[in-house]
């Protein structure tokens, strides 16, 4: 990876990596630290990093640093009992989004990361597997489970959301 490619990677993907980390940690400064650390690591290894794989390398480093960070701080994301959502036909998109974000934090960190990597960045199962260290089949299974949970959280007509 050349200097130009690295700086282009900063321009193109810094926001995405930050978004991914921040959505997981929900702490701005910690997320910034992890992003900076990820870019620093990529710069140190830029001579050996393929210029076309910069984004994947960046997300991989950031993901693992985030996992380490969570474990060090023993961050326990309480799996709140899935609240019963009361769906209404007139629910706005903004409300749906808020409910979905709330549902997101009820997933475990691996599922949440898989969903975000898939939905935010559009990575394939294989690419997500490279980033997270899972094989594509595992990614597929974990992601499907997460998606079913989110759907259940959002949509069951008989459930009522207590927000």
């Amino acid at each position, binding site marked *: 990876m050349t*200097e130009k490619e*690295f*700086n282009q990677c*900063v*321009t193109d993907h*810094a*926001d995405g*990596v*930050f*978004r991914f980390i*921040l*959505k997981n940690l929900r702490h701005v400064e910690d997320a*910034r630290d992890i*992003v*900076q650390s990820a*870019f620093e690591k990529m*710069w140190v290894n*830029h001579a050996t990093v393929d210029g076309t794989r910069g984004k994947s390398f960046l997300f991989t480093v950031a993901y693992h640093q985030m996992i380490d960070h969570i474990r060090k701080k023993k961050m326990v994301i309480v799996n709140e009992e899935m609240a019963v959502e009361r769906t209404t036909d007139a629910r706005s998109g903004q409300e*749906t*989004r808020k409910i*979905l974000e709330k*549902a*997101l934090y009820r997933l475990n960190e691996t599922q949440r990361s898989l*969903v*975000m990597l*898939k*939905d*935010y960045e*559009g990575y*394939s*199962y294989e690419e997500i597997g490279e980033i997270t260290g899972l094989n594509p089949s595992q990614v*597929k299974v974990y*992601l*499907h489970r997460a*998606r*079913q949970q*989110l*759907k259940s*959280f*959002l*949509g069951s007509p008989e459930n009522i959301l207590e927000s």
Partner: protein
Amino acid sequence: MELTRKTYEEYFLLYVDNELSAAERHGVERFIHDNPDLAQELDALKTAVLTMPEEIRFENKEILFRKENKEAVVLSFAWWRMAAAAVVLLFLGTAVWMFVNLGETRDGSLAVTDQKKNENTKQATTAADPGNDGKIANTKTEVEKKQNNSGIADLNQTIIKNNSSNKSVTPGRDSRIDGKALVNNNKNRPAARRVASKNIEPATAKSSVNRDLAITAEASRLKPLSDSKLVAAADPLSSHTSTSMVLPVSGRELDPVETREGRKGEMYATQPQRNNVIYVANTAINKNSLRGVFRKASRLVERVASLNAPEPTNEVAMLKQ
């Protein structure tokens, strides 16, 4: 795996995750069209897809940019390289020192060499310029006197012979020759001057070969037929006087009348004696830029030394008497 009502759930998830090919996606859409009761199931999965929070941005992104630092190439300067450099410097210094010394040696021997050449030339000169060789020989003789007074007697004989041959030369021609000769004699100046600066008092160093020529010529004019006077002028005791005279002759032609009437107390070269000057432009002189630099340096030293030296006394009167 075929898309059926039993397997549709996985296809719907793959559809939402955008992991199906275009054909497979069309197949799912046809399936929904054929099974509208499952369309709500697909819509529910679509709703569970996160949307990109565009408002979240990494502020102050500039801190992440990097610029490659070109590492400076550091050449190891090993001891043998230092030694090689020292040897080269020593060699160059020695070469320059030897070159300078060689140049000075050539200058010192130039007068003697020129005298020999002039003596040879004297044999081959035409009838119009018989005295020129004598003039140069006379000039060179004066230089020689500065170096070694012991050879004065022999040189005086040459002077006497040259002066006796001057009588047949016409004044007009002599003037022209004198002007050229004075210019050409400048080439011999460094040699004579350097010798003078070494062996004679500082005031003498100020005088040039041209002045020496003028002095010698004047000595001949004052007593053109008197060999004894010239011998006296070349006498070891008076040689210092004749060589140390500083006269205002600087290559221009002098008016004999003015010289005789207006400046009787001074000695100038007059026409009958000017024909004692010959062309010496073909004299072998060591010319190069380095020598020129040293010549300028030596002139500067002489000039500074002459500032502190006493004013030359007009010792011409002694000669006249």
